[in-house]
């Protein structure tokens, strides 16, 4: 089963990071695609865009945002959306994603991915905003499940129920981050397999994996270090159920040389063919 939007399976990709620009342009490594953090290429007309243009000439690009703030009770930021769309068109991004979260209120951006209360009121709000954004972008938006560290006492549904209802009612895609499922499951005490069982896989256009930091009392989604086996296992499950989907490794702290990050991403091959290392 491929995704219902007809978006391509780009294989295994990596998050594009500044420290890797030189290696990528000099060595043209065999990577399926690159994902960019959209906002890193906004409010700039200079060097970052020059490198992005060169990378986009050689590789498929997908845009991953952190400031759409789809769950905020602030109005949508149309200046942001216009810049997002212009960037999408500039680099020919295959799709655009952002998080099931809000990042600020009253005009202040915390630059964090803050949790949403999973209520009917919030669902109706987010559904209408996703529809508005998709109408503007003239393309499906992929919504990612975030790592969360608290839950609201007033939530009336589980995150996976909210995500399923949102994506079906707004007719949008899912960027399923299996590391975030694992992190939130640990922090809130739910079963990650139960989460994965509830996902409408025909909407999954992309999968994320990453490393995390287990403090014993909680797990923080630091995107540091190698991906742990329980997270790879979830990737294998999700990939199989989705009938294949683009896979991306995020590595954002203590970023290693490109070949190390690339080798880590390619470990996914062992888990999606059903052969554990």
């Amino acid at each position, binding site marked *: 089963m491929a995704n219902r939007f007809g978006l391509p399976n780009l294989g295994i990709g990596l*998050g594009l*990071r*500044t420290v890797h620009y030189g290696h990528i342009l000099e060595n043209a490594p065999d990577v399926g695609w690159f994902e960019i*953090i959209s*906002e*890193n290429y*906004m*409010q*700039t*007309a*200079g*060097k*970052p865009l*020059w490198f992005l243009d060169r990378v986009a000439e050689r590789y498929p690009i997908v845009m991953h945002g*952190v*400031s759409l703030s789809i*769950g*905020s*009770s602030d109005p949508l*930021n149309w200046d942001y959306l216009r*810049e997002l769309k212009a960037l999408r068109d500039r680099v020919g991004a295959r799709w655009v994603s952002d*998080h099931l979260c*809000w990042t*600020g*209120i*009253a005009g*202040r*951006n*915390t*630059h*964090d*991915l*803050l949790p949403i*209360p999973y209520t009917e*009121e919030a669902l109706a*709000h987010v559904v209408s905003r996703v529809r508005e954004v998709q109408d503007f972008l003239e393309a499906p938006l992929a919504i*990612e499940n975030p*790592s969360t*560290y*608290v*839950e*609201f*006492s*007033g939530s009336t549904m589980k995150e996976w129920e909210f995500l399923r209802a949102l994506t079906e009612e707004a007719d949008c895609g899912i960027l399923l981050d299996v590391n975030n499922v694992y992190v939130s499951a640990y922090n*809130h*005490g739910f079963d990650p397999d139960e989460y994965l069982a509830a996902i409408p896989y025909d909407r999954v256009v992309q999968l994320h994996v*990453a490393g995390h*930091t287990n*403090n*014993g*009392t*909680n797990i*923080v*989604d*630091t*995107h*540091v270090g190698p991906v742990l086996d329980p997270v790879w296992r979830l990737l294998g499950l999700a990939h199989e159920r989705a009938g294949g989907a683009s896979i991306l490794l*995020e590595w*954002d*702290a203590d970023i290693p040389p490109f070949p190390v990050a690339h080798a880590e991403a390619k470990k996914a091959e062992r888990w999606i063919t059903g052969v554990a290392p």
Partner: protein
Amino acid sequence: MIDRKPSPLVGGATEAFVHERASATPGNPVLEATSSADDAQAQPPLVASVDRLQSWFAASVTHPGLLSKGVLADGLLSRLDELERVVTRGPRLGALERLGVYHYGYRARLVECLADDYPAVQFALGDDAFEALCHAYVERYPSRSPSLNAYGQHMATLLATRAPAGDADAAPLAFLAELATLEWALVEVLHAAAAPVLSLETLQATPPDAWPAARLPRAETVRLLRFDYPVNAYFQAWRTDQAPAIPEPASSATVVYRHDLMLWRLDLTPAMTALLAGLFGGETLGDALTHIEREVHDADELAEAERSVMIWFREWVAGGVFAGIELPPSEGATEVN
């Protein structure tokens, strides 16, 4: 000391100064487990709209003091023991500790961004004082932009207006404000749009009699900075791991520019500074040249300036410092790159 050699590449390339935002969460301090959920007395959830909950959440996690005060700051809750009516405890941590991940992460992420933009200021201040400065920055300048690329733009203003702890701190603050100005200029130049610049060929093709009336505007990727301290000399010493001390006041000027994707810093003599400031201010070359005589009183320096001015121009043009050459309409030309 100003490097009086007409070499354009004093200071070398600067490759850092890109802050990358990620969707990750900053690593948090390890938290001790608190009482288990079995001990909890069930409290009915507080009924509030999404808007109200978000206002409370934002006020809590951006509160500059203790989170236990932050959760009471906006009036949704009147007592800390009501917190679980809004957010739940988890299997290992209580509600306040769990919320603390966001409280810690908010400032940590922005401090990290400022540290990326101002590594030399961080070195000059030391880590603890720099972090305190950043906390003051975050409080005074909350982000209102989707991107963090311009977040650090107010650092020099904050330093220049920050009350010194005592008389002894006044000079370092003035120096630090200038150092922040240099570091922010590097960020601005990195993000500036590359546009066509004046070429050597065009310069050489311009007839000598057209020069006095010509204007040579600044390229977008260039900043001219004048300081009361030897800021670039300090920055260069820091870049080359010489652990410089805070310098005594001494006038200096530096031009920062991007060329072929590299960032450059060039120290200027007073004669160079007077000439470039006039040109960047929109004056004709003829008028700008008169500043040299007005502002440079040292006979040797004046003589060297007269000998070297053509060399300076060739080097500035090679570095892409001018956007083009503008000739008066009567000369039959307007703007040429």
